[in-house]
């Protein structure tokens, strides 16, 4: 696979310093992202069967002291409305047995409608939006549901590949009921023609696993005449369940 071939590194954006400039073996002919080689451990992770009282069997807790209901609406908090197509993104956070993950922290960050992040290292020549920062938080409810109001982010150049663009995506961070269930990932939009050309989406080598990163348009989540709804359910598991399918 691509990871064993000589790597060419660039810098910048999500693929910061990542391998791949030439065509590879991903579904769209792109070389899947493997990360920065010098940061990858050489040794395999040491398997640890956790004691019943191991710290990792429990997780930090969050509550009303941590998150305000307003934090879930990324279109608020500025003088005016952000530019872009307003969207509502929601779904359920479940564990591998289908049980809701209740009262846990969900964090979201994203580019603005023009594909620009509020970050000193983002050099994309697209405008910042004075009415959009692109960071939100919420807690899951008793059914494991989360919900954000935001705008659909724009595509932006993937400077590690010639003439490549990252598809619109939302970055998500999640906690489960065990520290081992920690998850950071990215959500994509259905029907995006950039997906098969994206080195990061295609870095998930299993096609069905890749599809689980794509939300579905859900009119039931629309706010009529105000926002388009996308549904995306998230399943947390221990770190090893997805190890192989991520091509690690």
């Amino acid at each position, binding site marked *: 696979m691509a990871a064993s071939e000589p790597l060419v590194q660039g810098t910048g*954006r*999500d693929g*910061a310093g990542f391998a791949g400039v030439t065509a590879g073996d991903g579904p769209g002919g792109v070389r899947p*992202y493997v990360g*920065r*080689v*010098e*940061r*990858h*451990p*050489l*040794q*395999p*992770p*040491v398997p*640890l*069967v*956790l*004691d019943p*009282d191991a*710290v990792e*069997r*429990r997780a*930090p807790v969050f509550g009303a*002291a*941590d*998150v305000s209901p307003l934090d879930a609406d990324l279109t608020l908090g500025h003088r005016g409305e952000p530019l872009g197509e307003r969207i509502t993104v929601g779904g359920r956070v479940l*564990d*591998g*047995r*289908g049980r809701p993950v209740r009262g846990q922290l969900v964090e*979201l*960050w994203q*580019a603005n409608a023009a594909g620009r992040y*509020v*970050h000193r*290292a983002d050099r994309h020549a697209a405008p910042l939006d004075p009415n959009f920062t*692109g960071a*939100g938080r919420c807690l899951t409810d008793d059914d494991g549901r989360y919900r954000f109001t935001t705008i659909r982010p724009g595509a932006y150049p993937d400077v590690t590949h010639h003439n490549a663009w990252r598809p619109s995506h939302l*970055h998500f*961070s999640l906690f*489960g*009921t*065990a*520290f*081992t*269930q*920690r*998850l*950071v990932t*990215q959500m994509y939009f259905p029907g995006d023609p950039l997906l098969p050309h994206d080195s990061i989406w295609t870095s998930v080598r299993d096609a*069905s696993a890749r599809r689980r*990163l794509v939300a579905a348009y859900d009119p039931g989540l629309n706010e009529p005449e105000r926002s388009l709804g996308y549904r995306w359910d998230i399943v*947390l*598991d221990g*770190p*090893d*369940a997805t190890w192989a399918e*991520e*091509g690690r």
Partner: protein
Amino acid sequence: MSLPATPSQTIGPFHGTALPFPGGGEAAPVGHPDTITVHGCLSDGDGAPVPEALLEFWQAAPDGSLVGAPGSLRRDGAAFTGFGRVVTRDDGRYTLRTLPPGGAPYLALCLLVPGLTRHLFTRVYLAFPEHDPLIEALPPARRATLLAAPEAGGHRTYRFDIRLRGGAETVFLAFPDRGGRPGPP
């Protein structure tokens, strides 16, 4: 019932507006006399510092309790939540101020590193307990990578460097039983 997990994706370089929060590394209540400092450097296989990585610490309270408490993201200076989150600086360094855990003397550490497709887990031991299944299973040469070193002259200060790759590479962990709490099916 078994649902396939949502795959992990790289954290990328632009989490800085969303994930770090003020006081993230100040897990100890303000002015608490038992406060310890854990600090060190995150470096890669070339020995270069790794900036903008997110380090998350989760631990028992001094009485050994693992129930945690809300309020990490907006600390009130009084509660001990058991959770700390710091971002490595341009020189790869980080600092956590916390309370010593009761029970087994380690902090769980999750590393979210730009340039990796998924996070890493390790442990920060403030001392090696007499019996510990992880430490006993490791070759002696690798055990030291999990031990925070008390600093001479430093007041309750420990040094814990993390090397992602190569010589003296830190031991990273996998949890084959997925580590979740048992519960109703």
